[in-house]
């Protein structure tokens, strides 16, 4: 139930026209880690993590992706997803 709501949150925050979906919420829920804790372990601010989670980020550094995968013990593909349809712009 918690994972489904996290997935729904990710989809709600997709950027207009963007085809890359960020499923950070899903992995965070799986690993039972809070935003503040994850931000601290990765070495970014909570605000920047929020930008990433809500899909407002325009780019992600490999170093950041590496740290996220290290902390969440996952693959980049678990966090990043390609949706060929993208989100229609309003």
């Amino acid at each position, binding site marked *: 139930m918690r994972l489904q709501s996290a997935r729904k949150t990710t989809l709600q925050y997709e950027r207009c026209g963007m085809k890359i979906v960020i499923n950070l919420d899903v992995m965070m829920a799986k690993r039972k880690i809070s935003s503040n804790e994850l931000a601290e372990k990765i070495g*970014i601010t909570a605000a*920047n*993590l929020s*930008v*990433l989670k809500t899909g*407002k*980020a*325009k*780019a*992600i*550094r490999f170093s*950041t992706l590496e740290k996220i995968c290290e902390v969440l013990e996952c693959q980049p593909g678990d966090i990043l997803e390609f949706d060929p349809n993208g989100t229609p712009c309003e």
Partner: protein
Amino acid sequence: MKKNESAILTSVLIKIVYVLAVVCCIMAPYMVEHYDRMVMAKGDPSVFAPLLITLYCAVPAAVVALICLDKLLKNIIGCQPFINQNVKLLRIISYCCFVEALVFVYFATLKPFAVIVIIACAFMGLILRVIKNVFEHAVAIREENDFTI
């Protein structure tokens, strides 16, 4: 630190120009009269009224440009060089330069040397347009960078 001192110095210079602008507005009739006497001594017709009107017509655009420059400098000193507001300010300053060029067109028909003022103002306006375009791109790059996690 040095860059900030430079910006502060520029800010002080703008304040000085503010004061000079006010002084010139007050002293304009006397300065123009003095110039007119020199012109008439050479046998040319009086240009007192046209020159005085031209100068006073140039004041509003000059004041607007100074205010915009001051705001622009404050943003730069406040570590916000590449923001949309600065692009807007540069656009306004460039328009002021073009307006000044237009203001001197009538006086240039009486005294051809004023063409130099027109060309200088138009050229400055053009330079500022290009700088505005550069700032627009810089704003886009900064926004891209801000959203790179």
